[in-house]
Protein backbone atom coordinates (compact mmCIF):
# COMPACT_ATOMS: atom_id res chain seq x y z
CA UNK A 1 0.00 0.00 0.00
CA UNK A 2 1.31 3.39 -0.87
CA UNK A 3 2.11 6.03 1.72
CA UNK A 4 0.59 9.47 1.87
CA UNK A 5 2.17 12.58 3.28
CA UNK A 6 0.40 14.15 6.24
CA UNK A 7 1.44 17.50 7.62
CA UNK A 8 0.55 19.11 10.93
CA UNK A 9 2.04 21.30 13.61
CA UNK A 10 3.53 19.08 16.30
CA UNK A 11 4.61 20.74 19.55
CA UNK A 12 4.97 24.03 17.71
CA UNK A 13 6.95 22.66 14.75
CA UNK A 14 5.74 22.13 11.20
CA UNK A 15 5.94 18.36 10.72
CA UNK A 16 5.45 16.07 7.76
CA UNK A 17 5.22 12.32 7.90
CA UNK A 18 4.48 9.57 5.38
CA UNK A 19 1.80 7.14 6.55
CA UNK A 20 -0.48 4.44 5.19
CA UNK A 21 -4.15 5.36 5.16
CA UNK A 22 -4.74 2.88 7.96
CA UNK A 23 -1.97 4.21 10.22
CA UNK A 24 -3.28 5.30 13.60
CA UNK A 25 -2.10 8.63 14.95
CA UNK A 26 -0.45 6.99 17.95
CA UNK A 27 1.65 4.78 15.68
CA UNK A 28 2.67 7.72 13.50
CA UNK A 29 3.80 9.58 16.62
CA UNK A 30 5.66 6.72 18.25
CA UNK A 31 7.06 4.84 15.30
CA UNK A 32 7.54 7.42 12.58
CA UNK A 33 8.26 10.53 14.63
CA UNK A 34 9.98 8.95 17.64
CA UNK A 35 7.63 10.66 20.05
CA UNK A 36 7.32 7.77 22.47
CA UNK A 37 5.94 9.80 25.37
CA UNK A 38 2.47 8.98 24.09
CA UNK A 39 1.84 5.42 25.24
CA UNK A 40 -0.39 2.57 24.10
CA UNK A 41 -2.22 0.70 26.84
CA UNK A 42 -5.57 -0.88 26.12
CA UNK A 43 -5.60 -0.09 22.40
CA UNK A 44 -9.42 -0.13 22.69
CA UNK A 45 -10.20 3.53 23.54
CA UNK A 46 -10.67 2.91 27.25
CA UNK A 47 -7.53 3.79 29.19
CA UNK A 48 -6.48 7.23 27.95
CA UNK A 49 -2.69 6.70 28.06
CA UNK A 50 -2.58 7.67 24.38
CA UNK A 51 -4.24 11.07 25.03
CA UNK A 52 -2.89 13.95 22.97
CA UNK A 53 -4.16 17.45 22.26
CA UNK A 54 -5.62 17.87 18.77
CA UNK A 55 -6.74 21.38 17.80
CA UNK A 56 -7.40 22.23 21.45
CA UNK A 57 -9.24 19.04 22.38
CA UNK A 58 -8.08 15.93 24.22
CA UNK A 59 -8.35 12.84 22.02
CA UNK A 60 -7.31 9.22 22.30
CA UNK A 61 -4.74 8.85 19.55
CA UNK A 62 -5.23 5.07 19.31
CA UNK A 63 -8.64 5.84 17.80
CA UNK A 64 -7.76 8.61 15.37
CA UNK A 65 -6.21 8.03 11.96
CA UNK A 66 -2.97 9.87 11.29
CA UNK A 67 -4.59 11.26 8.14
CA UNK A 68 -7.31 12.85 10.27
CA UNK A 69 -4.62 15.10 11.77
CA UNK A 70 -3.88 16.73 8.39
CA UNK A 71 -3.47 20.50 8.85
CA UNK A 72 -4.15 20.35 12.57
CA UNK A 73 -2.23 21.44 15.65
CA UNK A 74 -1.00 18.64 17.88
CA UNK A 75 0.56 18.74 21.32
CA UNK A 76 2.05 15.67 22.97
CA UNK A 77 3.67 15.34 26.38
CA UNK A 78 7.03 16.17 24.77
CA UNK A 79 5.63 19.64 24.09
CA UNK A 80 4.74 20.56 27.66
CA UNK A 81 8.10 21.51 29.22
CA UNK A 82 9.85 24.65 28.00
CA UNK A 83 13.50 23.64 27.73
CA UNK A 84 14.44 22.36 31.17
CA UNK A 85 11.53 24.06 32.87
CA UNK A 86 8.62 21.75 33.62
CA UNK A 87 5.09 22.81 32.77
CA UNK A 88 3.08 23.76 35.89
CA UNK A 89 1.03 20.57 35.49
CA UNK A 90 4.18 18.43 35.40
CA UNK A 91 5.62 20.26 38.40
CA UNK A 92 2.42 19.62 40.37
CA UNK A 93 2.55 15.88 39.61
CA UNK A 94 6.07 15.88 41.06
CA UNK A 95 5.11 17.94 44.10
CA UNK A 96 2.09 15.76 44.95
CA UNK A 97 3.69 12.48 43.90
CA UNK A 98 0.91 11.95 41.34
CA UNK A 99 2.51 8.85 39.85
CA UNK A 100 3.99 5.51 40.74
CA UNK A 101 5.04 3.40 37.74
CA UNK A 102 4.48 6.35 35.42
CA UNK A 103 2.79 4.42 32.65
CA UNK A 104 -0.47 6.37 32.71
CA UNK A 105 1.25 9.65 33.56
CA UNK A 106 1.78 11.08 30.10
CA UNK A 107 -1.90 10.63 29.30
CA UNK A 108 -2.88 12.08 32.68
CA UNK A 109 -0.64 15.10 32.08
CA UNK A 110 -2.09 15.74 28.63
CA UNK A 111 -5.65 15.45 29.85
CA UNK A 112 -4.97 17.61 32.94
CA UNK A 113 -3.25 20.21 30.72
CA UNK A 114 -6.38 20.56 28.56
CA UNK A 115 -8.88 20.09 31.39
CA UNK A 116 -7.41 23.03 33.33
CA UNK A 117 -7.92 25.23 30.29
CA UNK A 118 -11.54 24.08 30.05
CA UNK A 119 -12.04 24.59 33.77
CA UNK A 120 -9.20 26.59 35.42
CA UNK A 121 -10.57 26.39 38.99
CA UNK A 122 -12.24 22.99 39.33
CA UNK A 123 -13.57 21.28 42.42
CA UNK A 124 -12.14 17.90 43.32
CA UNK A 125 -15.26 16.22 41.95
CA UNK A 126 -14.92 18.07 38.65
CA UNK A 127 -11.32 16.88 38.40
CA UNK A 128 -12.50 13.30 38.81
CA UNK A 129 -15.12 13.73 36.07
CA UNK A 130 -12.68 15.59 33.85
CA UNK A 131 -10.11 12.81 34.07
CA UNK A 132 -12.60 9.96 33.88
CA UNK A 133 -11.25 8.87 30.50
CA UNK A 134 -7.83 8.08 32.00
CA UNK A 135 -7.16 4.95 34.01
CA UNK A 136 -4.35 4.35 36.50
CA UNK A 137 -3.55 0.94 37.92
CA UNK A 138 -1.17 2.13 40.65
CA UNK A 139 -2.05 5.25 42.52
CA UNK A 140 -5.69 4.88 43.48
CA UNK A 141 -6.08 8.34 41.89
CA UNK A 142 -5.82 10.22 45.19
CA UNK A 143 -2.51 11.89 44.44
CA UNK A 144 -3.42 12.44 40.80
CA UNK A 145 -6.45 14.44 41.89
CA UNK A 146 -4.32 16.35 44.41
CA UNK A 147 -1.76 17.05 41.70
CA UNK A 148 -4.39 18.48 39.36
CA UNK A 149 -5.76 20.65 42.16
CA UNK A 150 -2.22 21.84 42.90
CA UNK A 151 -1.61 22.46 39.20
CA UNK A 152 -4.73 24.61 39.12
CA UNK A 153 -3.30 26.70 41.98
CA UNK A 154 0.12 26.88 40.30
CA UNK A 155 -1.45 28.05 37.05
CA UNK A 156 -3.59 30.64 38.84
CA UNK A 157 -0.48 31.97 40.59
CA UNK A 158 1.39 32.20 37.29
CA UNK A 159 -1.57 34.01 35.69
CA UNK A 160 -1.57 36.50 38.61
CA UNK A 161 2.13 37.29 38.36
CA UNK A 162 1.82 37.72 34.60
CA UNK A 163 -1.17 40.07 34.76
Amino acid at each position, binding site marked *: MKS*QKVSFTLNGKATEVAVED*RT*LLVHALREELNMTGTHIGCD*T*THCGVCTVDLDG*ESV*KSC*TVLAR*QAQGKTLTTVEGLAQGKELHAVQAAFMQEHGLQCGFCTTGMLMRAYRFLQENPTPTEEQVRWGL*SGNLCRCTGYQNIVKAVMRASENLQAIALTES
Partner: protein
Amino acid sequence: MIPSHFNYHNPTNLAQVFALLSEHAGEAKVLAGGHSLLPMMKFRFAEPTHLVDLADVAVLKGIKVNDSNLLIGAMSSENDLLRFANMEQLCPLLFKATQLIADPQVRNRGTIGGDIAHGDPGNDQPAVMLALNAQFHLESSQGKRIVAADEFFHGTYQTALAADELLTAIEIPLEQANKRFGFRKLKRKTGDFATAACALTLNFNDGQCSDVRIALTNLAPKSFRAYQAEWLLNNHPLNQDTIDAAVELAMRACEPAKDLRGDAQYKTKMAGEMLKRALLDATSSDSQ
Protein backbone atom coordinates in the same frame (compact mmCIF):
# COMPACT_ATOMS: atom_id res chain seq x y z
CA MET B 1 -4.07 -3.54 16.64
CA ILE B 2 -4.12 -2.24 13.11
CA PRO B 3 -7.11 -2.21 10.74
CA SER B 4 -6.96 -3.94 7.35
CA HIS B 5 -5.92 -1.79 4.44
CA PHE B 6 -8.40 0.72 3.12
CA ASN B 7 -8.41 3.89 1.07
CA TYR B 8 -9.12 7.06 2.99
CA HIS B 9 -11.20 9.76 1.30
CA ASN B 10 -11.71 13.26 2.57
CA PRO B 11 -14.59 14.88 0.66
CA THR B 12 -15.66 18.45 1.43
CA ASN B 13 -19.27 18.41 0.25
CA LEU B 14 -22.23 16.05 0.03
CA ALA B 15 -22.03 15.62 -3.77
CA GLN B 16 -18.49 14.24 -3.38
CA VAL B 17 -19.63 11.95 -0.55
CA PHE B 18 -22.45 10.52 -2.66
CA ALA B 19 -20.15 10.10 -5.68
CA LEU B 20 -17.66 8.13 -3.55
CA LEU B 21 -20.40 5.99 -2.01
CA SER B 22 -21.80 5.07 -5.42
CA GLU B 23 -18.38 4.51 -6.99
CA HIS B 24 -17.45 2.12 -4.18
CA ALA B 25 -20.90 0.72 -3.49
CA GLY B 26 -20.81 -2.14 -1.00
CA GLU B 27 -17.16 -1.49 -0.10
CA ALA B 28 -17.31 1.96 1.46
CA LYS B 29 -18.28 3.17 4.89
CA VAL B 30 -18.57 6.70 6.14
CA LEU B 31 -16.36 7.75 9.03
CA ALA B 32 -17.84 10.16 11.56
CA GLY B 33 -16.10 10.34 14.96
CA GLY B 34 -14.70 6.87 14.39
CA HIS B 35 -15.23 5.87 18.01
CA SER B 36 -17.37 2.87 17.17
CA LEU B 37 -16.12 2.17 13.65
CA LEU B 38 -12.33 2.35 14.19
CA PRO B 39 -12.37 -0.01 17.20
CA MET B 40 -14.42 -2.47 15.10
CA MET B 41 -11.94 -2.11 12.24
CA LYS B 42 -9.01 -2.67 14.58
CA PHE B 43 -10.64 -5.91 15.74
CA ARG B 44 -11.34 -6.65 12.04
CA PHE B 45 -15.05 -6.99 12.77
CA ALA B 46 -15.44 -4.41 10.00
CA GLU B 47 -13.18 -4.29 6.95
CA PRO B 48 -14.43 -1.61 4.56
CA THR B 49 -11.98 -1.02 1.74
CA HIS B 50 -12.96 2.64 1.39
CA LEU B 51 -13.46 5.03 4.27
CA VAL B 52 -15.23 8.29 3.51
CA ASP B 53 -14.46 10.82 6.24
CA LEU B 54 -17.30 13.29 6.89
CA ALA B 55 -15.18 15.60 9.05
CA ASP B 56 -14.78 18.34 6.44
CA VAL B 57 -18.35 18.34 5.13
CA ALA B 58 -19.39 21.61 6.72
CA VAL B 59 -23.16 21.26 6.15
CA LEU B 60 -23.24 18.30 8.53
CA LYS B 61 -22.12 20.46 11.45
CA GLY B 62 -23.83 23.06 13.58
CA ILE B 63 -26.86 23.32 15.83
CA LYS B 64 -29.82 25.63 15.12
CA VAL B 65 -32.88 26.56 17.12
CA ASN B 66 -36.04 27.91 15.50
CA ASP B 67 -39.54 28.51 16.89
CA SER B 68 -40.51 24.88 17.00
CA ASN B 69 -37.40 22.74 16.58
CA LEU B 70 -33.88 22.04 17.55
CA LEU B 71 -31.95 21.03 14.42
CA ILE B 72 -28.65 19.26 15.11
CA GLY B 73 -26.12 18.50 12.37
CA ALA B 74 -25.20 14.80 12.40
CA MET B 75 -21.48 15.60 12.73
CA SER B 76 -21.92 17.53 15.97
CA SER B 77 -19.78 15.86 18.60
CA GLU B 78 -21.29 14.89 21.93
CA ASN B 79 -19.24 17.69 23.50
CA ASP B 80 -20.54 20.16 20.86
CA LEU B 81 -24.02 19.39 22.24
CA LEU B 82 -22.90 19.95 25.83
CA ARG B 83 -21.12 23.21 24.92
CA PHE B 84 -24.01 24.64 22.89
CA ALA B 85 -25.43 27.71 24.68
CA ASN B 86 -28.46 26.87 26.81
CA MET B 87 -28.63 23.22 25.78
CA GLU B 88 -29.38 22.32 29.39
CA GLN B 89 -32.51 24.52 29.27
CA LEU B 90 -33.39 23.80 25.63
CA CYS B 91 -33.38 20.04 25.89
CA PRO B 92 -32.52 18.87 29.41
CA LEU B 93 -32.99 15.18 28.59
CA LEU B 94 -30.48 15.33 25.74
CA PHE B 95 -28.07 17.31 27.93
CA LYS B 96 -28.27 14.93 30.86
CA ALA B 97 -27.95 11.77 28.78
CA THR B 98 -25.06 13.14 26.72
CA GLN B 99 -23.13 14.03 29.88
CA LEU B 100 -23.25 10.35 30.79
CA ILE B 101 -21.94 9.06 27.45
CA ALA B 102 -18.43 7.61 27.63
CA ASP B 103 -15.68 9.99 28.82
CA PRO B 104 -14.43 13.48 27.87
CA GLN B 105 -12.03 12.30 25.13
CA VAL B 106 -14.63 10.03 23.52
CA ARG B 107 -17.24 12.81 23.65
CA ASN B 108 -14.83 15.10 21.75
CA ARG B 109 -14.79 12.71 18.79
CA GLY B 110 -18.01 10.70 18.90
CA THR B 111 -20.90 12.35 17.04
CA ILE B 112 -24.62 12.27 17.69
CA GLY B 113 -25.12 11.11 14.09
CA GLY B 114 -22.72 8.21 14.48
CA ASP B 115 -24.23 7.25 17.82
CA ILE B 116 -27.64 6.95 16.13
CA ALA B 117 -26.60 5.57 12.72
CA HIS B 118 -24.48 2.81 14.24
CA GLY B 119 -27.64 1.02 15.41
CA ASP B 120 -25.97 -0.32 18.54
CA PRO B 121 -28.61 -1.11 21.20
CA GLY B 122 -25.99 -0.24 23.84
CA ASN B 123 -25.68 3.35 22.63
CA ASP B 124 -27.61 5.98 24.55
CA GLN B 125 -28.79 8.43 21.90
CA PRO B 126 -31.22 6.02 20.18
CA ALA B 127 -33.43 5.73 23.30
CA VAL B 128 -33.12 9.46 23.93
CA MET B 129 -34.27 10.11 20.36
CA LEU B 130 -37.24 7.76 20.80
CA ALA B 131 -38.23 9.54 24.00
CA LEU B 132 -37.94 12.93 22.26
CA ASN B 133 -39.88 11.83 19.16
CA ALA B 134 -36.94 12.96 17.01
CA GLN B 135 -37.14 13.09 13.23
CA PHE B 136 -34.07 12.06 11.25
CA HIS B 137 -33.11 13.83 8.01
CA LEU B 138 -31.65 11.31 5.57
CA GLU B 139 -30.11 12.09 2.21
CA SER B 140 -28.61 10.16 -0.70
CA SER B 141 -27.92 10.88 -4.35
CA GLN B 142 -31.58 9.95 -4.92
CA GLY B 143 -32.90 12.70 -2.67
CA LYS B 144 -33.97 13.51 0.85
CA ARG B 145 -36.42 11.93 3.23
CA ILE B 146 -37.39 12.22 6.85
CA VAL B 147 -37.73 9.14 9.03
CA ALA B 148 -39.07 9.25 12.59
CA ALA B 149 -36.91 7.73 15.33
CA ASP B 150 -39.88 5.41 15.92
CA GLU B 151 -39.33 3.86 12.48
CA PHE B 152 -35.53 4.02 12.31
CA PHE B 153 -34.11 1.26 14.50
CA HIS B 154 -34.53 -2.20 13.01
CA GLY B 155 -32.09 -4.40 14.93
CA THR B 156 -28.48 -4.65 16.07
CA TYR B 157 -26.47 -2.53 13.59
CA GLN B 158 -29.58 -2.37 11.42
CA THR B 159 -31.40 0.86 10.71
CA ALA B 160 -33.60 2.44 8.07
CA LEU B 161 -30.47 3.87 6.40
CA ALA B 162 -29.64 2.52 2.94
CA ALA B 163 -25.96 1.76 2.29
CA ASP B 164 -25.52 4.91 0.20
CA GLU B 165 -27.56 7.14 2.49
CA LEU B 166 -26.45 9.62 5.15
CA LEU B 167 -28.05 10.82 8.30
CA THR B 168 -27.57 14.57 7.84
CA ALA B 169 -29.47 16.12 10.74
CA ILE B 170 -31.59 15.36 13.77
CA GLU B 171 -34.70 17.38 14.43
CA ILE B 172 -36.15 17.53 17.95
CA PRO B 173 -39.52 19.23 18.47
CA LEU B 174 -39.13 21.86 21.20
CA GLU B 175 -42.55 20.93 22.53
CA GLN B 176 -41.15 17.48 23.21
CA ALA B 177 -37.86 18.84 24.58
CA ASN B 178 -39.83 20.90 27.12
CA LYS B 179 -41.78 17.99 28.55
CA ARG B 180 -41.08 16.47 31.91
CA PHE B 181 -38.35 13.87 31.55
CA GLY B 182 -36.42 11.18 33.33
CA PHE B 183 -33.09 9.57 32.46
CA ARG B 184 -31.47 6.82 34.46
CA LYS B 185 -28.47 4.79 33.40
CA LEU B 186 -26.90 1.97 35.38
CA LYS B 187 -23.25 1.41 34.54
CA ARG B 188 -20.38 -0.42 36.12
CA LYS B 189 -18.09 2.60 36.12
CA THR B 190 -17.95 6.15 34.85
CA GLY B 191 -17.48 6.03 31.10
CA ASP B 192 -19.05 2.62 30.56
CA PHE B 193 -21.96 1.73 28.33
CA ALA B 194 -25.28 1.11 30.09
CA THR B 195 -26.04 -2.16 31.81
CA ALA B 196 -29.61 -0.88 31.53
CA ALA B 197 -30.94 2.62 30.91
CA CYS B 198 -34.28 4.33 30.57
CA ALA B 199 -35.15 7.64 28.91
CA LEU B 200 -38.69 8.97 29.16
CA THR B 201 -40.78 12.07 28.56
CA LEU B 202 -44.34 12.80 29.66
CA ASN B 203 -46.88 15.39 30.74
CA PHE B 204 -48.19 15.18 34.29
CA ASN B 205 -51.35 16.91 35.49
CA ASP B 206 -53.60 16.21 38.47
CA GLY B 207 -51.83 12.99 39.30
CA GLN B 208 -52.19 11.56 35.80
CA CYS B 209 -49.57 11.11 33.08
CA SER B 210 -50.20 11.69 29.40
CA ASP B 211 -48.15 11.54 26.18
CA VAL B 212 -45.78 9.09 27.86
CA ARG B 213 -42.78 7.89 25.86
CA ILE B 214 -40.56 5.29 27.53
CA ALA B 215 -37.44 4.06 25.74
CA LEU B 216 -34.93 1.48 26.94
CA THR B 217 -31.23 0.96 26.19
CA ASN B 218 -29.26 -2.29 25.97
CA LEU B 219 -32.27 -4.43 26.77
CA ALA B 220 -33.05 -5.99 23.37
CA PRO B 221 -31.42 -6.24 19.92
CA LYS B 222 -32.41 -2.59 19.39
CA SER B 223 -33.44 0.39 21.48
CA PHE B 224 -37.20 0.27 21.83
CA ARG B 225 -40.27 1.85 23.36
CA ALA B 226 -42.17 0.06 26.11
CA TYR B 227 -45.59 0.67 24.51
CA GLN B 228 -47.66 -1.35 26.97
CA ALA B 229 -46.17 0.44 29.95
CA GLU B 230 -46.83 3.76 28.18
CA TRP B 231 -50.46 2.78 27.57
CA LEU B 232 -50.96 1.84 31.19
CA LEU B 233 -49.56 5.13 32.49
CA ASN B 234 -51.51 7.17 29.92
CA ASN B 235 -54.77 5.64 31.05
CA HIS B 236 -54.51 5.34 34.82
CA PRO B 237 -53.75 7.72 37.67
CA LEU B 238 -50.18 7.46 38.92
CA ASN B 239 -49.84 5.53 42.16
CA GLN B 240 -47.75 2.72 43.58
CA ASP B 241 -49.91 0.05 41.91
CA THR B 242 -49.79 1.59 38.44
CA ILE B 243 -46.05 2.23 38.73
CA ASP B 244 -45.48 -1.43 39.68
CA ALA B 245 -47.71 -2.59 36.83
CA ALA B 246 -45.94 -0.36 34.29
CA VAL B 247 -42.56 -1.61 35.49
CA GLU B 248 -43.78 -5.21 35.13
CA LEU B 249 -45.02 -4.57 31.58
CA ALA B 250 -41.76 -2.88 30.57
CA MET B 251 -39.73 -5.76 32.01
CA ARG B 252 -41.79 -8.25 29.99
CA ALA B 253 -40.84 -6.39 26.81
CA CYS B 254 -37.09 -6.79 27.52
CA GLU B 255 -34.99 -9.48 25.87
CA PRO B 256 -31.42 -8.51 26.76
CA ALA B 257 -28.35 -10.49 25.74
CA LYS B 258 -26.19 -11.88 28.49
CA ASP B 259 -22.76 -10.28 28.58
CA LEU B 260 -20.08 -9.11 31.00
CA ARG B 261 -22.52 -6.57 32.42
CA GLY B 262 -24.92 -9.23 33.62
CA ASP B 263 -27.31 -12.01 32.68
CA ALA B 264 -30.76 -11.51 31.19
CA GLN B 265 -32.58 -11.72 34.51
CA TYR B 266 -30.38 -9.11 36.20
CA LYS B 267 -30.52 -6.71 33.27
CA THR B 268 -34.30 -7.02 33.04
CA LYS B 269 -34.66 -6.33 36.75
CA MET B 270 -32.41 -3.29 36.39
CA ALA B 271 -34.51 -2.08 33.45
CA GLY B 272 -37.50 -2.04 35.78
CA GLU B 273 -35.52 -0.18 38.42
CA MET B 274 -34.26 2.43 35.95
CA LEU B 275 -37.82 2.97 34.68
CA LYS B 276 -39.17 3.35 38.20
CA ARG B 277 -36.52 5.92 39.12
CA ALA B 278 -36.87 7.83 35.85
CA LEU B 279 -40.64 7.95 36.33
CA LEU B 280 -40.28 9.26 39.88
CA ASP B 281 -37.77 11.87 38.67
CA ALA B 282 -40.20 13.03 35.99
CA THR B 283 -43.27 13.20 38.21
CA SER B 284 -41.91 14.38 41.56
CA SER B 285 -43.36 17.80 42.36
CA ASP B 286 -40.07 19.61 42.83
CA SER B 287 -38.63 18.41 39.51
CA GLN B 288 -38.91 20.58 36.38
